[in-house]
């Protein structure tokens, strides 16, 4: 059965609802108010999929030209650094306000070995003696200042950067 034909009066006032089998109520005394109520009841989102009235969505696909101008804007490009200089000690590159990576690695390797030696001397955790420690390399004797200190021996030549 074809859906009932809309009366001409309601064609101009109400938006057409493409719902089959919609039975129109008999003409009321105040048709405009009734129509507004009907519209409110029928256009409630029946689920998340029908929420077209209040979710923002893009209207058109952004073209590649627009995308490129946004992605390649001056603010998004990587800035060239001008604070790189060579390290005076080793010649590798370093940043002005940062320690040289190569020199730092060199020092930390040696301090790691010293720490291993100390762990071997102590034998376990929480056995640090209550005296100062001094590191001596090959061919060095403790001086008068090192009288009461714990001595850690390293079997190698004193590195140039480890001043006494």
């Amino acid at each position, binding site marked *: 059965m074809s859906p009932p034909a809309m009366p001409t009066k309601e064609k101009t006032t109400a938006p057409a609802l493409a719902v089959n089998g919609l039975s129109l109520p008999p003409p009321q005394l105040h048709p405009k108010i009734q129509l507004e109520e009907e519209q409110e009841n029928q256009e409630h989102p029946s689920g998340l999929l029908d929420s077209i009235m209040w979710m923002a969505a893009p209207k058109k696909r952004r073209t590649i030209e627009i995308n490129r101008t946004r*992605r*390649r804007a001056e603010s*998004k*490009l*990587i800035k*060239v*650094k001008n604070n*790189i200089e060579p390290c005076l000690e080793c010649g590798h*590159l370093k*940043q002005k306000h940062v320690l040289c990576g190569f020199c730092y690695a060199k020092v930390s390797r040696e301090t790691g070995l010293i720490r291993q030696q100390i762990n071997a001397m102590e034998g376990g955790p929480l056995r640090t003696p209550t005296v100062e420690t001094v590191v001596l390399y090959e061919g060095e004797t403790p001086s008068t200042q090192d009288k009461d200190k714990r001595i850690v021996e390293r079997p190698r030549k004193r590195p140039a950067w480890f001043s006494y």
Partner: protein
Amino acid sequence: MAAAGTGSGFVFVRNVCGLFRDSRLAVLARPQQLSWFHSSSSLSTKNWEKKNLKVFPPQLPEEARRPAEVHHCRRQIKYSKDKMWYLAKMIRGMSIDEAVAQLEFNDKKGAKIMKEVLLEAQEMAVKTHNVEYKSNLHVAESFSSKGKYLKRIRYHGRGMFGIMDKVYCHYFVKLVEGPPPRPEQKTGLDQAREYVQKLKDRTVIHSL
């Protein structure tokens, strides 16, 4: 009747074969004249590596010295081509020392890989491409492109799923011998002169 039919059939087939032999095969014997054929039959697209194999004829004494070039690339880097593009754009036109310095102090993942590629290319240039000084190189071309992606499933709510791409990229670089080309500095006067010339060069079409 059957014999006659088959006889004419045989003649017909022979004619067709003859036609085929004359036209198609003869044309196939002259491959340069095929304009409707897809000329590159191989499926390989690793053309950047092949650019190093190109050999130029010896230069004449009056010709300008052609600078040495080396093409290098790395394929299937586990990084995004869009993110790699920013680094590639940064080092375009820099000298190799400058480029390596900038990449060393950049925190991006692609910077480390790009630095390795540049150093490899520099070594290649000195060893096999007749470059005298390793610092006398500059980055002429540098760009990234999409590699082959792996696809995975990304689980969403309500039983929905999306297909996630595990992105890979390629990185290409061309080093050329010589100092980096300086971009031309245009003065205001030059720009104004050009503008006025452009206005003067306008023509009105369909006029008397």
